[in-house]
């Protein structure tokens, strides 16, 4: 197992390098750079920034060097934990993204947890009562969950939260808790602001998991060892929970890797709508102001998160299903 993980981690390095090159190319694509963008913005606001000042700043931040050199400088800082300098925020990139990456991750993990806790029992219910009213209703609801984009759900949540319940729904804390010291009350307040977004984030994945669990369990329930278990006189709950579900759960673990991108995508978008400190708002601002190193580093870290998540899903599958051999 350890050798498998190490080998996968090593194989990740060349892919990550290619990903970083592609990232840098994309970030470099728009004409101009942060300074010309800044000059243009200053220009529209009335005062002007002369050409010499722009060039001076470009030289100061090394923006006049060829792209290859700038790429090499940027990427060679990574092993040292130096991800470049954000021109927009006048701060090292590392100081800006740490908390936000963590928040993106936290939101995704809570969401994943909720997804499983909800999807498993519903999937089992649907499979054991195939074509019943409840099953059909849940199937329809599942399709609906797949069809509504997260940001629309978030807008609806905003609407209902304000209009019907009159609660604070934006941001990570209520306004009165914002500057308070950490206390159980503050943690509870944060949970109140995090759990609804996590549910919204998980709706699509939940629908998918329910469908897969239902299909997988239906297939298992038709197998002979289940008939044998019933013939032995085992209780139905034991047959389902100990015999069938145990095996039927494996496909769910293997789709976990496929669901990660959606969770990361959703966390980015939800951050924008609900003003949560995820990567989203910072990323969009960096993209629009051409704050290259900040945008590039964030994109690279999101990819890294995705790759590590996939590795974890593979390991989890091997752990849950001993028939799978890792090489």
């Amino acid at each position, binding site marked *: 197992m350890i050798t498998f993980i190490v080998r996968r981690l090593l194989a990740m390095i060349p*892919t*990550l390098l*290619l*990903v970083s090159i*592609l*990232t840098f190319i*994309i*970030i470099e*694509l*728009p*004409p101009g750079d942060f300074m010309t963008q800044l000059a243009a913005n200053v220009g529209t606001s009335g005062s002007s920034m002369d050409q010499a000042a722009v060039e001076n700043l470009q030289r100061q931040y090394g923006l006049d060097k060829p792209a290859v050199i700038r790429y090499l400088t940027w990427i060679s800082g990574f092993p040292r934990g130096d991800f470049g300098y954000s021109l927009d925020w006048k701060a090292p990139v590392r100081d800006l993204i740490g908390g936000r990456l963590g928040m993106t991750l936290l939101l995704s993990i809570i969401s994943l947890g909720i997804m499983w806790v909800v999807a498993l029992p519903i999937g089992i219910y649907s499979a054991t009562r195939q074509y019943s009213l409840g099953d059909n209703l849940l199937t329809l609801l599942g*399709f*609906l969950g*797949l*069809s*509504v*984009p997260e*940001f*629309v759900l978030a*807008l*609806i949540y*905003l*609407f209902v939260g*304000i*209009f019907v319940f009159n609660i604070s729904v*934006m941001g990570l804390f209520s306004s009165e808790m914002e500057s308070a010291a950490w206390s159980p009350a503050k943690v509870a307040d944060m949970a109140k602001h995090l759990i609804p977004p996590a549910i919204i984030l998980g709706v699509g994945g939940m629908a998918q998991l329910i469908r897969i669990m239902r299909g997988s369990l239906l297939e298992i329930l038709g197998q002979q060892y289940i008939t044998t278990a019933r013939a032995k006189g085992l209780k139905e709950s034991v047959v389902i929970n100990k015999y069938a579900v145990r095996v039927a759960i494996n496909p769910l673990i293997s789709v976990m890797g496929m669901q*990660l*991108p959606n969770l*990361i*995508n*959703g966390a*980015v*978008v939800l951050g*924008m*709508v609900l003003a949560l400190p995820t*990567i989203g708002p910072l*990323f*969009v601002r960096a*993209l*629009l102001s051409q704050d290259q190193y900040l*945008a590039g580093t*964030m*994109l690279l870290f*999101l*990819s890294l*998160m*995705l*790759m590590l998540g996939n590795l974890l899903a593979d390991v989890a599958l091997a752990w849950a299903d001993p028939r799978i051999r890792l090489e």
Partner: protein
Amino acid sequence: MSASANQMEQVLDEATLSRAEEESRYGLSQSQLIWRKFIRSRMAIGGGVAILLFYLVALFANFIAPYGGDQRFTDYLYAPPQGIRFDTQNGLYIYGLEKKVDPDTLLTTYKPDTTRKIPVKFFAHDQPYKLMGLFDTDIHLLGLPVKDTGIFLLGSDRQGRDMLSRILIGSQMSLTIGLVGVFLSLIIGSITGVTSGYFGGQVDNVIQRVIEVIRSFPSVPLWMALAATLPQHWPPERIYFSITVILSFIGWTWLARQLRGKVLALREEEFVMAAQLSGASDAWIIFRHLIPAVFGHIIVIASLAMPGMILAETTLSFLNLGLRPPLISWGVLLQEANGLENLRHFPWLLFPALFIAGAVLSFNFFGDGLRDAADPYTM
């Protein structure tokens, strides 16, 4: 006794019937089998019909919409949705709107003015447009004879434009951008996928590596980064086309992966060997034998990819990175609903979300049924 004999007979009848049905299946072509299985799934048919309706509405959007997408009623900003009323005396009519400005908040509210009944006319003349981009006309399905107020079935927006008209006209963008995006992905994906599977070796390695790198990115941030590279000053048509290219930049990888697997298996079949032995070139084998052989698969994947494309366009436009005004799409419209104040006072700005969910739901049902049908040999 006779009852049970009857029952017996019935069971036997059914058995012979189902056997006959089974045997008749052997005589059917693959496409007939697919059609049979597809028709059996009611949800998929419903989805298909709904999709057809959506596209028909998009095609005739300018006619069905009471007004043009940019037509403004400056006296009726943020008017709430109005209902069409009916009585025998007046036929179809709506009430005029009475405006009231709150002195404290300066918020304008509207109340139906029950003294003013405005008849609703079918085939009314209003803003001229080109039907399907071809015929000049100014006839709209519904309209009012008066021009000082409008009929706002789904309310009006910040600039006093009719939401229904904008949603209908926006459907042209939102529904076609996915179609074009899927089409581009199909072309790139089927050529690379089939080539990769057919040649194997180094070609396969390189293509798979490229796919792996692209798939290492979470799609939405990658789309956002790509969309941010589009210059602000580009004309709308160019932005539209660029967005489809950006969407297919990731879309093709999925298709290529799936087709590669299929072709890896097909490559060993006799008909490919026969073609090779009779001297057919690789290009001929790919385009005349392999792509037609996996065509059904391609169609299924295309219909399953549509919802993702529609959602991606709306998300990007919503985040101000995709289509931008003056273009109208569902995502562009939802952008106006963003923000607490907008939601609190003008919840009808959320109506485009209903249309998005409807379109995506239809495609999900349709694609799901098609996927089951594409494997017609399983019962």
